[in-house]
């Protein structure tokens, strides 16, 4: 019994079919509670008013947007090293989710920035690196879409993902040289005694948990769909003979 057993598409389908409803239900529960708690049961911030509540969407989406790329990187490496098709398909399934999360982050950030900073957009290092991350996602998805042969596509996108990761990190630090920051520092980190105030912290954690579960559920569903598409096209090819 090891993790690699689920590299077998049949095993993966039956196992993921069992756990997807749980992840989906958990995501729905945590997001619903987190957002309701955050939006209706917490007080307004004394300086930012009710706009502070955007963090219940902004922070979890940003977290997923970055970590989706890491997940794609790991999945790409597994594909390149061990040639498990499920892994390549999982990376493919994660990319559109990453795009949407990046967009949510940028849009909620703009909505918050307008009343708080007085501008929808500023060329701040954090904002800029997210925009660049968005471009990387676009290129990755476009490359998948452009290639017919699934194995070639998986190989090429995996290498692009690895090279892209290096350049995305480089860009992240390059923009620091180029512009002064407007965005505040990290709101959450594991090594800090106290993060944001407790009233905001607990619903935020709920919301983050919900987003993580949602991401896992969506990746699993996406991967299952991709496996079935692959099967259907294999059947069609056999029939045409």
């Amino acid at each position, binding site marked *: 019994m090891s993790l690699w057993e689920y590299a077998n598409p049949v095993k993966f389908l039956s196992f993921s079919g069992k756990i997807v409803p749980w992840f989906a239900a958990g995501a729905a529960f945590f997001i619903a509670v987190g957002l309701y708690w955050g939006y209706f049961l917490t007080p307004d911030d004394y300086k930012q008013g009710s706009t502070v509540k955007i963090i219940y969407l902004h922070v979890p989406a940003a977290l997923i947007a970055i970590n989706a790329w890491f997940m794609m990187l790991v999945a790409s490496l597994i594909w390149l090293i061990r040639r498990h098709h499920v892994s390549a398909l999982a990376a493919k399934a994660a990319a559109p989710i990453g795009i949407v999360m990046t967009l949510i982050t940028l849009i909620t950030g703009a909505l918050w920035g307008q009343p708080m900073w007085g501008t929808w957009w500023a060329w701040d290092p954090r904002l800029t690196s997210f925009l*660049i991350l968005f*471009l*990387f996602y*676009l*290129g990755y998805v*476009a*490359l998948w879409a*452009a*290639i017919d042969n699934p194995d*070639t596509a998986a*190989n*090429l996108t995996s*290498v*692009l993902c*690895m*090279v*892209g990761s290096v*350049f*995305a990190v*480089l*860009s992240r630090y*390059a*923009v620091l*040289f*180029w512009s002064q920051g407007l965005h505040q520092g990290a709101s959450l980190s594991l090594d800090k005694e106290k993060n944001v105030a407790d009233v905001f912290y607990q619903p935020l954690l709920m919301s983050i948990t919900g987003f993580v579960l949602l991401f896992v559920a969506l990746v699993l569903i996406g991967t299952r769909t991709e496996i079935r598409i692959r099967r259907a096209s294999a059947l069609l090819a056999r029939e045409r003979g």
Partner: protein
Amino acid sequence: MSALLLRDIRLAMRAGGGFGLSLAFFLIVVVLVPFGVGPEMGLLSKIAPGILWVGALLACLLSLDRIFALDFEDGTLDLLATAPLPLEAVVSVKSLAHWITTGLPLVLAAPVLGVLLGLQSDAFYWIVLSLLLGTPALSVIGTFGAALTVGLKRGGLLLSLLVLPLYVPTLIFGAELARRGIAGMDVGTLMSLLLGITFASIALLPFASAAVLKVNLR
């Protein structure tokens, strides 16, 4: 290797090779900017390093798909892949040829175009220096993009979508180096970072390019 290099350079220089096309494109981009932002020399000389860098980057992008496309179509690339020369070396030589036929002319043309943008003569040094250090990275990164899209029909648009995000760090360090150099600020860190990107790309990216090229030739 030198035979391949000479062949690529010769092919690019002769008629139909597209040599000079990127130079002309560079010229047009730089000429168009004043039409867009107005003829005020003070403003132009202020944004000149950025215009020259973005122009050079776009001109470089324009010629990328020529690196492999023709050789892929007539089968030369298959021969090169089976030749005793490792594919990594082929890729590096092709990047070098691309730089000599595209990057180097852009570097040499930049001061001339700088005149149009009202740059002072002491600024030329920084423009040329930053472009000279940065354009090799553009060629090598571009070769990677060209290798990714070599088998594709209509790969041109996809190529720019893939390559432009990869150009971001080089562009930032290069343009920032030129700007700070002109302003007389300390540029030691930036110069080592730009050089770091260039040398790291030259050292590592040919392996990635050769890997994807092998996938595309299979």
